[in-house]
């Protein structure tokens, strides 16, 4: 990175930290720390919801996902708008009416203490681990770029974020997320514009779309049903609906955002606007990845996008063999450059036969290149069995660092930090609120002063920050981080949602039946994942349905509820 990039990066991050600290000023109580005194308008709620969900992983992995697998990943979000509607009808009015700090408080009012504690514990496990991964994602980028030690980078990365999160609570989190998203959207728009701008002069956006489509990267809708296919319209609508309902309805990191709204109306508007903007937003982020794919048809791509990993293999006994494969890959890239020009010309002239022929030749060459790349990955594993051979997270970064002008590189790197901080800050705040409200205050110390609870809340924000940094130290070798987070969620979200579904819709089922149903369903979900029977996205729906069915089966055998 140039000096200008460093200035832009450091200045952007410093502005966010100072803004967060500035928003932390003034007297605070536990209510302001966790609920922001319920004073937020809908647009702050909306931006906070988006900022919490869109982590660095979204901006690092999603373009890479489109590069490797096409844009069909967007279908994963199709269930989200439907979930927003259900939330507005059922969850939001109840949470506001009961004036809860956390979603899990409601479960004690409806069921009993053990069900509340179980659900809060599942959340703490899942969110604690996921947040650690969210810290790791930008740290991998920094360490790869600068050659820094990844473990120290994780610590510095998490440490900066903790400053304003611990000091300011949910108010600082919401306002910094707002500023972060303004910078993020501006930067991503510039990056998308630059990808098209950097293509050869005779290739415009329309031609780039045509080429990308012919190479099957614009496969936004996949209608074929397959239980093991992760991203098709059916898994997106059904599995995505259950996942979104669970995430926004039962995950305190999101519930905590819309509980800060000043009324039910403001909460509903924030969620419904999220239902309107989320799918187009993801579409545009993935489109950047599809354009990056076209860019690397015209300009040579490396055989592996993680250059640091590649350099390590070059210095081993596998180095000469890797050099040979890189040479072959380079020759094939030259062929592809010629072939893609022929394809673009045929498409421009609306020569269907010529385009079909050019596409066939280009795809054949691309398949040969992929075969050579696969050999290189095998070599990498031979050279270092612990090597991570998934470079999805490096594709967009490689493009940014090597092709964007000075200053914009720094801004894009800053954006990755800001996106990470937005989701991590909300997660730390929600982990602290669940620990203090559902565990500490409820089980151990219910009669302390407000000042004591505020001190404990800040302390737990700090403790969870440290815990997540420790998790981040072990997360770097997990492959595509966006999938790891989603897999982790699918282990717990379905079961958690099932508990809430029983609470809302099955009035005759009590806490004991629900508690044991949840334990049994969690065991089945983990067993199904372990035996790879279905794609992970379906586990959300399966977990939810199992809790409902098991609870109905167990209820006749337990003592009737007394209310």
């Amino acid at each position, binding site marked *: 990175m140039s000096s200008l990039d460093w200035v832009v990066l450091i200045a952007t991050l410093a502005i966010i930290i100072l803004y967060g600290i500035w928003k932390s000023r003034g007297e605070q109580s536990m209510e302001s720390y966790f609920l922001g005194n*319920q004073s937020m308008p809908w647009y702050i709620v909306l931006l906070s919801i988006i900022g919490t969900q869109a982590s660095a992983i979204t901006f690092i992995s999603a373009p890479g996902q489109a590069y490797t697998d096409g844009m069909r990943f*967007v279908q994963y979000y*199709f269930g989200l*708008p*439907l979930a*927003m*509607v259900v939330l*507005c*009808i059922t969850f*939001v*009015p109840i949470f*506001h*009416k009961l004036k809860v700090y956390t979603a899990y408080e409601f479960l004690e009012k409806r069921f009993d203490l053990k069900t509340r504690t179980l659900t809060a514990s599942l959340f703490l496990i899942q969110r604690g681990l996921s947040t650690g991964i969210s810290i790791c994602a930008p740290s991998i980028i920094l360490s790869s770029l600068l050659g820094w030690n990844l473990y120290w980078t994780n610590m510095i990365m998490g440490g900066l974020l903790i400053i304003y999160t611990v000091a300011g609570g949910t108010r600082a989190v919401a306002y910094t997320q707002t500023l972060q998203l303004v910078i993020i959207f501006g930067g991503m728009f510039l990056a998308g514009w630059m990808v098209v701008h950097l293509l050869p002069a005779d290739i415009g956006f329309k031609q780039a*779309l*045509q080429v*990308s*489509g*012919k190479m*099957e990267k*614009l*496969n*936004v*809708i996949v209608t074929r049903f397959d239980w093991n296919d992760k991203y098709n*319209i059916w898994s997106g609508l059904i599995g995505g609906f259950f996942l979104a309902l669970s995430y926004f309805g039962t995950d305190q990191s999101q519930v905590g955002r819309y509980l800060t709204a*000043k*009324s*039910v*109306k403001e909460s*509903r*508007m924030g969620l*419904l606007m999220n*239902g*309107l903007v989320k*799918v*187009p937003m993801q*579409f545009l982020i993935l489109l950047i990845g599809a354009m990056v794919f076209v860019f690397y048809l015209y300009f040579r791509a490396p055989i592996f996008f993680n250059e640091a990993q590649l350099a390590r293999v070059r210095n081993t006994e596998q180095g000469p063999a890797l050099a040979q494969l890189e040479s072959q890959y380079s020759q094939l890239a030259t062929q592809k450059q010629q072939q893609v020009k022929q394809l673009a010309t045929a498409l421009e002239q609306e020569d269907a036969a010529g385009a079909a022929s050019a596409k066939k030749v280009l795809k054949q060459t691309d398949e040969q290149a992929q075969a050579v790349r696969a050999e290189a990955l095998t070599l990498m594993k031979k050279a270092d069995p612990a090597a991570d051979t998934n470079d999805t997270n490096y594709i967009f970064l490689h493009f940014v660092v090597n092709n964007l002008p000075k200053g914009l590189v720094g801004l894009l790197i800053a954006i990755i930090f800001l996106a990470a901080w937005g989701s991590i800050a909300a997660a730390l705040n929600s982990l602290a609120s669940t620990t203090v409200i559902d565990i500490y205050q409820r089980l151990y110390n219910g009669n302390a002063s407000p000042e004591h609870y505020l001190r404990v809340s800040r302390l737990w924000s700090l403790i969870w920050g440290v815990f997540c940094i420790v998790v981040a130290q072990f997360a770097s070798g997990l492959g595509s981080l966006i999938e790891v987070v989603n897999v982790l969620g699918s282990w717990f979200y379905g079961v958690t949602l099932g508990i809430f579904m029983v609470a809302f819709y099955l009035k005759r089922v009590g806490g004991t039946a629900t508690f044991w149903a949840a334990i049994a369903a969690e065991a089945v979900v983990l067993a199904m994942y372990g035996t790879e029977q279905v794609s992970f996205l379906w586990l959300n729906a399966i977990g939810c349905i199992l809790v409902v069915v098991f609870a109905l089966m167990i209820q006749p055998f337990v003592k009737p509820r007394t209310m």
Partner: protein
Amino acid sequence: MSIGPEEEKPPLFPTWRYWYALVIGWLVLLIVLFYLFTKTYS
């Protein structure tokens, strides 16, 4: 909160049902547009 959820009127529309229909209709429209996009460029 001074106003109960039942009494709160949404902005622009007379009831919340119109907002829910808008969100679902928007999703359907997006899926149709994406389908056409996929077909056009495949």
